[in-house]
């Protein structure tokens, strides 16, 4: 039997994300179920595992978004705490990686390292951590420290946060848990002892949690800026990217991979995964029509106005979403949308661009917002989608994708049932898992343990 892995073609990595906020989720669809019930998460995670995906990813929420001083009410809102949820999902899956965003600003290294080590133990080596930081005082209002960071400090703090977490994971060596009943030796002396004194953190003591099965949980990073790319090249196992157009994606891919050598790493030690959507139907034409329908559901008339208001910084509720863009200029310094990463900068420039595009193409407000929302990434019959994904990866655009379904919980079913088998036939996607851990799925080595030398008691 000729195994698909013998074709020598690059293997694709796939992950799935349950979208929390933003207007990706079409909650008005009759097939849309709860965004919070465990059953929805179980369905999506099991579908991803049936499709032999590398991992299931949950983003983090720390404050509800606000628009014009009130809670933003047009999109799906409300989501679980992701590490707790992933621990529950570990009970209903056996191989699927379980990845969570955990903010390094509103947490401390000790508790994050402990919770991730716990998830890695309880899942048998399937945990991953998307490291992010916040510089957002709005979010800070929910936390004791309340504090936030100068933006320039973000990566410095993140890097030290991550380094401290790794020191904690390394504080227990492999085999420090002896559990030798006859000898009466449960642990090796000094297991868990640590001390870190740096610019952002000064911590010491004994870490409570033995070394995780993967050595270190997989580290994910998402950042397009120069410092973000450098941080990824130095520290991350996986990079999330927003570049899902092939030309931009190739440039990003080349740039990030070229930075790895500086840190003594090879290109295959960092997987680059853009987020993408998939619309699959019986024929290309049907898929195109369905993609159109989805996009129009994602950008309701109210959503179109809200997006415009976020850029213009003004109340535009008097404008007709099917009419032309306002001819007034954006308000200077007005912040209409809080807790949202979109439209944070360069709003004047965005507004100029949008107006020019609308005038040139004679677009209404809603059509314009639909146009700039970017549409769906892969659209077509199953064969078309499989070819496009394969082409994207084989031509240096990505190592794979994080798929974001527009429906909860059934949004991955078609892809897994109809596209995954085609990728497997092409020999570019695994037919079964080859190892138990997420590092195995990603082709990453397990982090070697430090030597188990007994440590002196201070």
């Amino acid at each position, binding site marked *: 039997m000729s195994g698909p892995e013998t074709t020598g073609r690059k293997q694709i990595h796939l992950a799935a994300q349950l979208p929390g906020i933003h207007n990706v989720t079409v909650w008005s669809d009759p097939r849309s179920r709860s965004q919070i019930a*465990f059953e929805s998460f*179980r369905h999506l995670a099991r579908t991803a595992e049936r499709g032999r995906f590398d991992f299931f990813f949950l983003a983090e929420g720390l404050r509800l978004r606000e628009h014009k001083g009130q809670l933003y009410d047009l999109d799906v809102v409300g989501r679980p705490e992701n590490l707790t949820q992933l621990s529950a999902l570990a009970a209903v899956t056996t191989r699927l990686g379980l990845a969570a965003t955990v903010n390094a600003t509103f947490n401390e290294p000790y508790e994050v390292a402990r919770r991730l080590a716990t998830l890695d*133990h309880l899942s048998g080596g399937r945990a991953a951590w998307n490291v992010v930081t916040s510089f957002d005082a709005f979010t800070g209002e929910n*936390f004791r420290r309340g504090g936030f960071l100068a933006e320039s400090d973000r990566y410095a703090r993140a890097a030290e946060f991550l380094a401290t977490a790794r020191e904690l994971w390394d504080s227990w060596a492999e085999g420090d848990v002896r559990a030798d009943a006859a000898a009466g030796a*449960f642990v090796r002396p000094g297991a868990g002892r640590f001390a870190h004194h740096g610019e952002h953190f000064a*911590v010491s*003591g004994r870490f409570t949690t*033995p070394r995780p099965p993967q050595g270190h949980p997989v580290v994910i990073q998402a950042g397009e800026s120069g410092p973000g790319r450098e941080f990824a090249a130095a520290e991350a196992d996986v990079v999330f990217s927003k570049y899902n157009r092939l030309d931009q994606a190739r440039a990003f891919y080349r740039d990030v991979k070229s930075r790895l050598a500086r840190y003594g790493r090879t290109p295959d030690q960092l997987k680059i995964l853009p987020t993408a959507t998939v619309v699959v139907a019986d024929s290309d034409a049907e898929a195109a029509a369905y993609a159109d329908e989805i996009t129009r559901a994602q950008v309701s008339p109210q959503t179109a106005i809200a997006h415009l208001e976020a850029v213009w910084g003004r109340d535009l509720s008097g404008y007709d979403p099917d009419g032309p863009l306002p001819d007034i200029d954006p308000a200077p310094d007005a912040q209409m949308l809080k807790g949202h990463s979109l439209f944070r900068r360069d709003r004047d420039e965005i507004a100029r661009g949008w107006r020019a595009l609308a005038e040139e193409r004679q677009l209404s407000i809603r059509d314009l917002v639909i146009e700039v929302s970017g549409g769906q990434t892969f659209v077509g019959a199953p064969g078309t989608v499989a070819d496009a994904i394969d082409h994207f990866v084989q031509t240096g655009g990505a190592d794979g994708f994080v798929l974001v379904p527009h429906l909860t919980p059934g949004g991955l079913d078609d892809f897994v049932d109809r596209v995954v088998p085609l990728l497997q036939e092409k020999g570019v996607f695994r037919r079964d898992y080859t190892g138990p851990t997420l590092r195995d799925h990603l082709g990453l080595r397990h982090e070697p343990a430090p030597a188990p030398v007994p440590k002196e008691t201070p």
Partner: protein
Amino acid sequence: MTAPPLHLAVALDAAGWHPAAWRAEDARPADLFRAEYWADLVTEAERGLLDFVTFEDALGVQSAAFHRPDDRVDQVRGSLDAVLLAARVAPLTTHIGLVPTANLTHTEPFHVSTGLATLDYASTGRAGLRPQIASRAADADHFGRRTTPRLTDEDVRDPERIGRRLSPLFDEAADAVEVVRRLWDSWEDDAEIRDAATGRFIDRDKIHHIDFEGEHFSVRGPAIIPRPPQGQPPVMSLAHASVPYEFAARAADAVWITPHDRAGAEAVLAQVDTAVRRTGRDTRARPLLRFAEVLVFLDAEPGAAARRKARLDDLDGAPLASDAEVFTGTPGELADLLLDWREAGLDGFRLRPGALPHDLVGITRGLVPELQRRGAFRTAYDATTLRGHLRLPRPGSRYARAS
């Protein structure tokens, strides 16, 4: 008239509450950090129809000393995060309540609230919270943000002294529980409306900022997760002295106490009553359940449990020391004790198995049938939520406007 059935819980901790329990014949010391071990224990507890299991936790490594670390290597050292542990077993069980310990001194109440609400969803209404303060000053060094009171050898001889010394932490923890609870209430039950006509997913008038301002921290809210299935997962705290009794009276739905006989139970419950009066709590509107703790070694054959404990004592090099009464005997003898103590005014018991799984099985397959024969324990679950088992009504959100 018969007394209402007892509430019965089991406190799970590592290989059991005896420090040498991991060396017992049927212990599974190599599995303590594996999910399967915990799934087996909780499934066994559910087979016994228990109200809930608790998961011990601390932010520091275990120690034989109450107030500072030690360097012993012959006892279990190392632990997993209890909230994640409870979540890991939630989908594998259907009825039993799951009550993890969460620290409120060094962690964020926002995270604790969200984590417990998530557990309540993952278990469809079976989550409870056991809030804990960081009594060991060394734990503060793990965070490097603050210091906490350092207990002396003199302090730890007297629970009242410990309570007084740590009272600022209890005050802070009471604020933290208040924040946790307000966040649970911050979404009214029907805040998600999915109104396609107006394009609104939520009714924002039914989601509220909590605007908590306390001495130690402020939290604006609202929660990022809708109101949990139980509305308010039950909060339960362990207490040994007046300061923690007052904490329970302010913050908890159930208090766990550690008397050593029936008279001691009566005395402690009188102190709890005093604390309730001092805080002005109306227990008819907000019941405070009272559980006593007993550390148990159970064997069917008379004398076997005591011999088993003696052997573990030998292995550990000292007789077992505990804040709670240590019982050795048969299921029938333990049933006698529990039913006698109950007369002091207890609602139930949180039993600490001396060794796992041995003494858990002794509870589920020895004690439970014995209590059932005496009409003192349920013969089937008649509810699916922890509040249901505890006969606590589901409260409405404090923010819901009276209609």
